[in-house]
């Protein structure tokens, strides 16, 4: 019986040896594994897609009629907010998926293989980027159906999409680190709801911050989600003649978001990889 043989037959030869090739091979292998999951568990995709559709319809059709925004139509105002909310919540999936893999022992399996240390996280954040991209496309189509229009040049539109996705990618690393730090996957879902729900709602995503009481208004104006929303609104040409708060981060939202993305990547990529190299299932 030589097929199973271990010590008697020699170890199989390693075909991929250069560190760069190994890095790509490992990252791609894990990404592919995660994408297969999206394909085979459509409930996940349905949830990721239905929720934003629901939000678009709920806000534009149910609340929209009663909300007046100075200087622009509510549906034009709303869509950037929904995009931002979706990419923020979409990133939390990286956290719960890491926690799930850890719990099921898959991280232990990966960690006993001679893989590149960042591969599991690279694969995770890559595949979640794809998932977010898909839900972004669906949301845009829904938005177009309810009357949303891009009123900027094509390159600005693409820049807006890229900015939203880049933000979700960077935020995925933050959530992945959290996912490796909690005891059960459920904690991530609950905690992210508790933190991200107020963060997205006490912002300019769904209503202008100018009507809020002072404390909430200051919070909303400095809220990073507001900058993301404002940046998307500018790049999609949806600001209209609505007034912009006289706060630096709101006056320069694109730059603010880019700096935020850079900071998240510089801090959390190495931190998360480092954390990964020392975790193991309980």
């Amino acid at each position, binding site marked *: *019986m*030589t*097929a*199973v*043989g*271990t*010590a*008697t*037959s*020699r*170890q*199989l*030869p*390693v*075909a*991929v*040896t250069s560190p760069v090739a*190994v890095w790509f*091979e*490992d990252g791609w*292998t894990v990404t592919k*594994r995660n994408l*297969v*999951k999206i394909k*085979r*568990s459509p409930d996940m995709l349905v949830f990721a897609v239905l929720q934003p559709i629901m939000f678009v319809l709920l806000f534009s059709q149910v609340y929209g009629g009663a909300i007046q925004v100075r200087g622009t139509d509510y549906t034009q105002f709303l869509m950037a907010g929904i995009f931002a909310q979706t990419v923020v919540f979409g990133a939390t999936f990286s956290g719960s998926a890491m926690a799930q893999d850890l719990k*099921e*022992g*898959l991280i*232990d*399996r*990966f*960690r*006993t*293989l*001679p*893989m590149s240390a960042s*591969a599991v996280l690279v694969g995770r954040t890559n595949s979640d980027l794809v998932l977010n991209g898909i839900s972004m496309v669906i949301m845009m189509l829904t938005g177009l159906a309810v009357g949303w229009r891009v009123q900027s040049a094509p390159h600005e539109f693409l820049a807006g999409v890229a900015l939203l996705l880049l933000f979700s990618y960077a935020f995925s690393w933050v959530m992945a680190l959290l996912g490796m730090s909690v005891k059960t996957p459920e904690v991530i879902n609950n905690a992210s709801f508790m933190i991200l729900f107020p963060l997205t709602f006490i912002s300019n995503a769904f209503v202008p911050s100018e009507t809020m009481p002072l404390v909430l208004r200051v919070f909303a104006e400095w809220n990073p989600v507001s900058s993301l929303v404002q940046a998307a609104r500018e790049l999609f040409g949806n600001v209209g003649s609505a007034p912009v708060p006289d706060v630096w981060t709101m006056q320069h939202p694109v730059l603010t978001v880019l700096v935020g993305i850079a900071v998240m990547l510089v801090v959390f990529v190495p931190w998360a990889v480092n954390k990964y190299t*020392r975790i*193991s*299932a*309980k």
Partner: protein
Amino acid sequence: MAIIEASGLTKTYRSKSGPVHALAGLDLSVPEGTVTALLGPNGAGKTTTVKVLTTLVVPDGGTATIDGVDVVADPQATRRSIGVSGQYAAVDENLTGFENLEMIGRLYHLGRRTARDRARELIDVFDLSEAGDRPVKGFSGGMRRRIDLAGALVMNPRVLFLDEPTTGLDPRSRLALWGIIEGLVADGATVLLTTQYLEEADQLADDIAVIDDGHVIAQGTADQLKAQVGGHRVVVTLVDPADGDAATTALRRYGVGDVESSGDGRTFGIAVEAGPSALQRVLADLGEAGIALHDAGMRRPTLDDVFLRLTGHVATGDDEDGDGGPARSRRRGRRGGATDAADTSGRADGAEAGRASRPGGGDPPDGADAAGATSESVR
């Protein structure tokens, strides 16, 4: 030098109830081509030992090498020569059996073609064709465990770590997995396995290291360990419990120490110096007195006896370093506690029967976990 060498390993975990010394100066040496079992209750440090040796956990102190490579200093090199199968089958539920194995091959950097060929080969050898092309989700625990074990073998590693390979499996799947492991051993693999099943260590391992409280308290072959407890025991089971006094008297006449009796008052046993002749004499005496016997025999001490002797307590777990769930540990506790003669010999018989039935393998595998079919296909 042995292929696995560990010396003075220490690891302390913080917990709510204070520090837990999962490893307290553990020494271990496993020669190439042998099977060593780490035997101990939950919380003894078995899983932590495996985690240190498989680069998952960095020890606080001590050294460990696999094939001369320091596991702490060079974890990547260590990972290239080991295969690991954990306590909970770590397979991706959304991937098919084939995809799981192919992925592992790719991550060992075997290249696409070799990874696929190897996956296909293992699917055949492990009789996994049923799970080969369908997502693992929905397959039995035994099937998952086989895929996980196959995953550990993807690149023909020199050293295999099997952490409680049969925990949670039904007896049938367990026998099937034993068959597979025996096949690997026959091929000359070096295997370090952990178990809390005493008969599993007895069945599979050349060498047994008994672990308690984070260090090895005894190491040797099953026979050597049993010899530490003493020789044979003569055990009789009566038809009528009323004959108990007569049986006790007869046993005491030829035995050493106290007569142990079972809870139902029908089974009596005693340690003896010369097993066969003592058994003959006991039977002769009982026959003369006209006492009807349900069963009578001689048995070697089991590892249950060994564990009791070495540790002063039966093989129950306090589950401190997270070796297993509390519920399971409690369940095992009750079972392990019942070390009376009837229970132990009954279980030993069960294992014998399982062993005897396997080589025959007469019955065709109606289920995926059929013991006979699997062990044969590996041999």
